[in-house]
C-alpha cells in the first residue's frame, strides 16, 4: 500500500504541491491526469525524494519515507520511471538493466532479466549495444525494465507513452498491466486518456497542486465537468 498524505513541495518560492493526497493498494493502477504544470511530475519527484517535500507523509507499507534520501526510498521498495527516461547512454542496454538490480524486499514481486527480455525481445537483440543508440520506444521499455529489476512494491511511472508510436504504446500498456498482475501498486502520470482509461482502476485529477478528483474511470467519464474544468485547454 502506498499512501501519500498532505504532501507539499516547492521550487524556491514557487509552492507547487499544496497538500497532495492519494492512496493505492498493491495490484492496483491509479492514473494521475492534469494539465501541463498541474504538478504531476513534481509529485513524482517529491514522493521519490528527488525534491525534498516541505511537509507531508509518504507511507509505503506503513513506513514514512517523506524527506528521506532518494536512494533510501528506492531501497524501501519504491520505483521511479522518469518522464525524461534518463537512461545511461554510455552504458550498454544490459549494463543499464544491471544498474537497476536490487534484491527484493519480502512480499515484493520478483522480476528477472530473461522475463523482461521475453516481454520485449528487441531489447534482448540489442543487449550489447550502447543505450544511447536505442529508439524512443526501446528507451522507454529499457527505463521501465531497469526500475522493475529493483523489485519494487510500488512504482511511479511518469508519462511513459509521450512521443511513442501507437504500436509501442500498446506494448507499454501491456507491461503496466503485467505489473498490476504481479501485485505492484502502480501510479501512472499520463496525458493519453485513451491509454489511461484502458488500464487504470482509479482516476486522480490534479489541479492547483492538489488532487481535485478521485474516482473510478466510470465516475470520471460520467462527469464531463471535471474534464472541462481541469483537463481541457480553453
Amino acid at each position, binding site marked *: 500500500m502506498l499512501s501519500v498524505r498532505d504532501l507539499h513541495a516547492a521550487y524556491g518560492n514557487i509552492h507547487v504541491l499544496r497538500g497532495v493526497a492519494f492512496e493505492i493498494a498493491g495490484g492496483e493502477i491509479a492514473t494521475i491526469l492534469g494539465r501541463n504544470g498541474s504538478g504531476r511530475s513534481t509529485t513524482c519527484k517529491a514522493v521519490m525524494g528527488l525534491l525534498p517535500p516541505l511537509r507531508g507523509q509518504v507511507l509505503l507499507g506503513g513506513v514514512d519515507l517523506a524527506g528521506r*534520501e532518494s*536512494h533510501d526510498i528506492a531501497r524501501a521498495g519504491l520505483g521511479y520511471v522518469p518522464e525524461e527516461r*534518463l537512461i*545511461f547512454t554510455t552504458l550498454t542496454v544490459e549494463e543499464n538493466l544491471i*544498474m*537497476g538490480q536490487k534484491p527484493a524486499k519480502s512480499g515484493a514481486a520478483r522480476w528477472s532479466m530473461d522475463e523482461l527480455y521475453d516481454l520485449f525481445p528487441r531489447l534482448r537483440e540489442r543487449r550489447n549495444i550502447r543505450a544511447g543508440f536505442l529508439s524512443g520506444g526501446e528507451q522507454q521499455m529499457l527505463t521501465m525494465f531497469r526500475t522493475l529489476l529493483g523489485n519494487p512494491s510500488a512504482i511511479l511511472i511518469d508519462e511513459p507513452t509521450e512521443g511513442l508510436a501507437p504500436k509501442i504504446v500498446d506494448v507499454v500498456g501491456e507491461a503496466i498491466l503485467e505489473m498490476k498482475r504481479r501485485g505492484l501498486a502502480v501510479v501512472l502520470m499520463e496525458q493519453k486518456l485513451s491509454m489511461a482509461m484502458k488500464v487504470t482502476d482509479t482516476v486522480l485529477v490534479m489541479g492547483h497542486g492538489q488532487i481535485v478528483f478521485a474516482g473510478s474511470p466510470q465516475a470520471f467519464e460520467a462527469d464531463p465537468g471535471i474534464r472541462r474544468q481541469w483537463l481541457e485547454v480553453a
Partner: protein
Amino acid sequence: MDAFLVALLNGLVYGLLVFMVSAGLTLVFGMMGVLNFAHASFYMLGAYAAFLSGRYIGFWGGLIVATLAVGLVGLFSERLLLRKVRSFGHTQELLLTYGLFFVLEELVKLLFGPTPVAYRVPDELRFTAFTIGNSQFPFFRLLMGATALLMFFGTYAALRFTRIGLIVRAAVERPQMVSALGHNVPIVFSGLFAVGSALAGLAGAVAGMYYPTSPAMAHELGSIVFVVVVIGGLGSLNGALAASLLIGVMTSFAVGVESTFGDLFRALGLGGLALPGLEAVQFSSIAGVLPYALMLLVLLWRPAGFAGNRA
C-alpha cells in the same frame, strides 16, 4: 640511433610518471567534475608519507601506507571540505582547493623543511636494467613505468568490469537517476575521490624516490596534470595515458635538440627573416612550454580532447 632510443625511453617514463598523477585527476576532475587544484599536493604528501613510514617498515610497506594514508586524506578533504562547497559551483571548489594546496605545502615545509629530504631508491633496487650505447637505464625507472601501467590496467579494469565501476560510470552521467535506483551516490563519489587521491599518493611514493622529494614537487606537476586531463579528454583514462606519453616524449625530444631557432630559419631558407632575439634561442628552452601549446591547439581543434565526449 642510441640517443634517439634513450630520449624515447626517458620520454616514455616521464610520460608514465605524469600519467600516474593524472590517473587520479581523471577520476576526480574528469569524471566527477571536481576542480581539485590540490591534487598534486596529494602526490607530494604520498612522497613524504612513504619517506616517513618507509624508515620503519621498509620500501614496500611505505608504498602501501602512503597510498592508504593519502587516500584517507582525500576522503576527509572531500567529506569535510569539498562537499560543503560543491553546490556553489566550480569557483568555490577552485578557491578552496587552491587554499588547500598552499596549506599542505606550508605544513610540509613546517614539518620537513623547505629543502629536499633524503628519500632515496633502496640499495636493492639500485642497479642498471640495461645499457644502450653509453647510457645506462636504471631498473627503478622501469619500476616507475610498470607501476604506472599497473595503475592504468587496474583502474581501467575496475571501472570496466566491476559492479562498483558500473555504478561510478552511471553516476558520472546521471547521479540523480542512480540515486533513484537505490545507490548511495555521495558515498560512491567520496570513494572515487579517495581512490583518486590514493593513486596520486602512490605516484608520489614511487616517484619521490627518483625525483627530489621537496615541498616544490606539487608545483612542478600541478599544472601539467590538468593539461593532460584536458588534452586526453575529461574522464577518459585512455586519453590521459595517450596525452601523458605524448607530452613525455615530446618534452624529452625537445630537451635533447641542440639546434637554435636561427638554425631552423636558415634550414628553411628564411635566414634573413629571423628576429634577432630569437636567433640564439635553443629549442630545448621551449620544452616546458610545449605541453601548454599543445593544450591550446587541442582546445582549438578538438575541445573535448583526444578521447573525451564532453568539453
